[in-house]
């Protein structure tokens, strides 16, 4: 059997805290990622869901080697990234890209839209000036951004449009894997739907593989084949999306699912009663 595109095993990222100026003592370690394992077959999406501080973004950065994991293995396209020399990891970055949460701070305000999307091509010496310019227009067109605006600056556009620019930049080198780190959490609902649809279309068109990181359970559900639920640096539950959402086994997953507000007043009332009972039971002992 072919190895899945991405295989992560026992991934660890511990940040050490030190105290003292001259003689630094090692005080404690924050285990941001603490033994995380998962795999993603090519063309599929793994949804990584959890609350703030659960380590989901750190996991994403470790996969891309944007921060160096302190332990465990990341195999991508059959290569062990944690052991590759830097130069080779850089080359592999063509195949693995990231879309960030905040389309306001993740685009350089002093670069034009065209330059932003062309930058990965320049960094990796792809094409000539002319072919790059054509490629940029093609990329912007693919993400539904008017290619006529390549000479404008990011501040002239709304959050949704900026996120399209960020996605075009991630697509520029024709990657296999894209880590989507909360790609829609800064956007309004109506715009969020546009971007989620776009990500789905791009996946179908280019056979992309996504590691989709988000705190919104409904958003993750709509995008993912498999789900991994993270809490305090560990994956507490994993499985096919349908199964995790309909038959959660871990208490944390259950509490997350019953906390999500859904647009149905009757259901919300029923949940409120449930929560009240649970609290009363807890208080009673």
């Amino acid at each position: 059997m072919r190895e899945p595109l991405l295989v992560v095993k026992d991934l660890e990222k511990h940040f050490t805290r030190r105290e003292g100026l001259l003689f630094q003592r090692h005080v404690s370690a924050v285990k941001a990622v603490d033994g995380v394992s998962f795999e993603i077959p090519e063309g599929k999406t793994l949804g990584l869901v959890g609350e703030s501080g659960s380590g989901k973004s750190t996991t994403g950065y470790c996969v891309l080697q944007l921060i160096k994991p302190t332990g465990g293995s990341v195999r991508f396209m059959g290569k062990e990234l944690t052991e590759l020399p830097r130069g080779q990891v850089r080359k592999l970055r063509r195949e693995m890209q990231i879309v960030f949460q905040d389309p306001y701070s993740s685009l350089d305000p002093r670069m034009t839209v065209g330059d932003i999307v062309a930058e990965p091509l320049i960094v990796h010496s792809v094409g000539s000036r002319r072919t790059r310019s054509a490629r940029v227009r093609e990329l912007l067109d693919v993400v539904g951004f008017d290619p006529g605006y390549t000479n404008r600056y990011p501040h002239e556009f709304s959050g949704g449009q900026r996120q399209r620019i960020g996605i075009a930049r991630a697509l520029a080198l024709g990657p296999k894997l894209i880590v989507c780190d909360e790609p829609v959490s800064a956007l309004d609902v109506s715009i969020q739907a546009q971007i989620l649809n776009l990500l789905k279309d791009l996946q179908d068109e280019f056979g992309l593989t996504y590691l989709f990181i988000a705190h919104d359970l409904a958003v993750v559900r709509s995008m993912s084949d498999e789900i991994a639920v993270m809490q305090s640096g560990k994956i507490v539950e994993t499985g096919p999306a349908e199964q995790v959402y309909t038959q959660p086994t871990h208490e944390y997953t259950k509490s997350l699912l019953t906390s999500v507000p859904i647009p149905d007043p009757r259901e919300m009332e029923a949940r409120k009663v449930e929560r009240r009972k649970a609290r009363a039971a807890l208080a009673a002992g």
Partner: protein
Amino acid sequence: MALLEVDNLQTHFFTREGVVRAVDGVSFTVEPGKTLGIVGESGCGKSVTALSIMSLLPQPPAKIVGGSVRFEGFDLAKLSERDLEDVRGNEIAMIFQDPMTSLNPTLKIGTQIMETMQRHLGLDRKQAKQRAIELLEEVHIPGAADRLNDYPHRFSGGMRQRVMIAIAISCNPKLLIADEPTTALDVTVQAGILDLLEELQEEYEMAMILITHDMGVVAEAADDIVVMYAGQIVEQAASLELFDHPEHPYTEALLGALPQIEGEGIREGRLTAIPGRPPDLADPPPACRFAPRCPFSDREDSCAKEPPELRQIRSGHWVRSAHPASERTREPAVASK
């Protein structure tokens, strides 16, 4: 008599780019002890409405150019700044989205809770301190007496919002305005805060205006709902009625755009996105403000010619559209990508 009556409120911002009509003719009432949910996307005017009620907007650039806000029959716009101060924090309290920035980082939690009570209720330090401990217990902060001496950075986001709520209810206000009170919080924490608000609301017989972008949050907490778009109310109804029979194309679209958490074919399906984006309020569409994004409007009919009025389509259900769901004769235009 309603506790709060907002009538044809118009708040405009006078900027170099022109006059931005952030709130443009908003009317609603809040009954004692009830919760009104105001829901809409960024820039729809929901927060500006709240800040206008409290007279908390910087003038200029903002100016309330029309309408009135009556609290227990008194026109708040006619009160002096001094009298307004007696109302704010005392009769009407407000909590904000970001519990990280709305507490003063250089003052102890206790000082911040006591300040309001000393100003409004004339309590001395000892009484105020006693009451502050009780309040922290009421918002379920463990070890209340010890925590009075802590600074805000020692509290998590959810705990800070609990402190903000303690301050807000300290003078037993008749109305609490909560502007996105749970947006910055994780879902499990959010559920706890919403439960707490409801619990306190019953205990203190307090009315609430809950402002949020989240349809789920209003479904959970509101008795009545106002949906805002581009500075105007586009739909208004009791909560159950609104979710059972949404009438305005925008309300329907908002509900359709939400990813579902349970059901079939979620992974394969596409979401019903709303094409385009909200209009520039310095230069809104001349007639119906939703028309450019509406699947039911076309250039031939009234949508582009005359502004639709907010009209009552059923008892207690108001809608501002020429094509509400129950009167539709045509199919929606196919939405573009």
